[in-house]
């Protein structure tokens, strides 16, 4: 589904990604771990089409199609979704209005008509129940005054509404208590199927107990320095990142 080859990216002339290679197939969950500043969030932003990053080398393909010349919205229309580490507050736009606009703009981008109102309503009801979101919450301004946990749950709610092919969860576990973590993970697991793929970016093994990855990659200094199965996450949790760093230096 996603093929990243020798990806180099920089911001303000500072190199962040220095040759990423990653291949993800439909139906897979990949975890990307690594110490602070290793480039995890940058990778997520670059896949999503953030214009501040300059891709100097390499390629990103989604289902065989290069994303290079596509804007962030066009990538979203192709099925890329990024759950933000820090979701932006937008006072004055309600959750429902925002989600409706996002869905219909994505449909427009794919050459489809607007979603019929009753279908939209049904879907909002179903997905908000899945994530145990109170109806009142939906008429509030987007992320405005939400707690950390509410923001993250709202991100996954949007993901559930948009049904992306490739979902990137950037530190979705940060700021979540254990109950919220479980709700979010249940949500992601329910949405998971053979046709889509998930990238989970995290510092900790905790989230991976709930969203079990098929592969774990360690990102350090802009490169994937180690890949393995889900056991790798446990090893990292036990030993920290220092042994990886010294491995790389050695």
């Amino acid at each position: 589904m996603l093929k990243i080859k020798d990806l180099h990216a920089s911001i303000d002339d500072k190199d962040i990604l220095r040759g990423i290679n990653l291949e993800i197939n439909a139906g897979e969950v990949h975890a990307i771990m690594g110490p602070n500043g290793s480039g995890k969030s940058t990778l997520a932003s670059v896949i999503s089409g953030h214009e501040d990053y300059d891709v100097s080398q390499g390629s990103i393909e989604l289902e065989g199609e290069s994303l290079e010349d596509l804007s962030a919205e066009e990538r979203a229309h192709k099925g890329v979704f990024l759950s933000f580490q820090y979701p932006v507050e937008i006072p004055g736009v309600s959750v429902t209005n925002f989600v409706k606009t996002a869905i219909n703009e994505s449909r427009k981008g794919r050459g489809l008509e607007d979603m019929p109102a009753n279908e939209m309503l049904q879907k909002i009801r179903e997905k908000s129940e899945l994530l145990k979101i109170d109806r009142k919450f939906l008429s509030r301004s987007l992320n405005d005054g939400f707690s950390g946990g509410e923001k993250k749950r709202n991100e996954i709610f949007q993901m559930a509404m948009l049904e992306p092919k490739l979902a990137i969860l950037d530190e979705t576990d940060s700021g979540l208590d254990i109950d919220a973590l479980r709700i979010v993970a249940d949500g992601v697991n329910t949405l998971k199927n053979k046709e889509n793929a998930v990238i989970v970016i995290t510092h900790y093994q905790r989230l991976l107990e709930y969203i079990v990855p098929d592969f774990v990659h360690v990102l350090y200094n802009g490169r994937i320095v180690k890949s393995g199965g889900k056991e790798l996450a446990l090893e990292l949790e036990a030993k920290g990142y220092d042994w990886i760093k010294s491995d790389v230096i050695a």
Partner: protein
Amino acid sequence: MDLKEKLISSFWGLDNGIEVDDYINDMRGDAIKIFEASGFPSKKQEAWKYTSLNTLVKRDYALESPSETSIDFNLVKKYFLHDLDSYAIVFIDGKYSAHLSKTTHDGMDICLLSAALTKPKFKAVIENYFNKAASNDSLASLNTAFASEGAFVHIPKHKAVEKPIQIIHFSTGSNAAMLLQPRNLIIADENAHVQIIERHQSFTNHPVFTNSVTEIFGDKRSVIDYYKVQNDFEEASLIDHTFIKQEKDSNCSVHTFSFGGKLIRNNLNFTQNGEHINSTLKGITIIGNKQHVDHSTMVNHNAPNCESHQDYKGIFGDQATGVFNGRILVDQVAQKTNAFQANNNILLSDNATINTKPQLEIFADDVKCSHGCTIGQLDEDALFYMRSRGIPKKEAQALLTYAFANNVLETVKIPELKQRINKLIANKLGVNIGFHL
């Protein structure tokens, strides 16, 4: 002959068929003398530092209206809130249009200023109110000198007008360039309630220069909501002077929506003359090209325990320029005043300009006064967030702009008007957003 001379000489030969008594004639004579002495304001004056009338006053304007024009309602329907049952007082090139209007004398007066100025039964009211709130600066005086037509609204004690009043000043463009000087007088007696929507609108893109004066009097416990819709063609300029005098326990709000025109200057002047008065001044400005919008507000707090709330949002694209000059004057006796002022602006282009200046003059020692102004761009992080959810850049910008202006619309009490303003904003931003805030 320049415009000033032309105005002064035509004053003495003025014959518009509206015969007024000596009381008004003397007032006009005094007013033209003030204009003669001071002339058009220049940028040398502090209050006009950022707004130049130079190109406007250099032009030659017709001062007399052409003969009465009749227009088919269907052609101008779009400028009305036509889905709303309302009273209407409509003028075309300064002349009253009976067939577009819907006036009344049934239990209240919603009619013409010319009628009020000439009919004996209004003599007492005119002597009590006419030109009693307007200042005697040069442009307001110029209006007074020529004032003969406009809306006259008088709502008696305890009367709540059941539907809004639309005051619309049209210009046809059948004269190449035209100077219009409408004059409105609004009086709400004790505990009267009234909602008014005012609009100045050209039919075609032709130079029209409107120098408008509106006086509003809110007696004890009255509630007045006044909405100004300014969405005219690129060649139309408007200088609006609105003077509001409020008595004890009254509530008055003025919302100004400035979306189009060449040059717009809004002088909005509130005077509070009793305790527990509430004054609200709000505005949304969205302009581009080389348009210019200037809001100069003034709130005189002359009594204790009163409030004023000002909230102006501005969005400026291309080479547009904006001015906000907000003055709050708190008299020594006006203890426990609560005055709030905010002016927030977004510049969408590197060539757009906003000059914003809060001016607080406080002579009482126990007051709560706050002000703040911001100038910024649309939040880039928010834009990326929205785009990553599939919302195209233009729509995302529009949505953020909507969100930015949203709280100004919250206090609009007429749902049909709110919806219309939403549509105008969407049109102005060049998007079709599928929802209303």
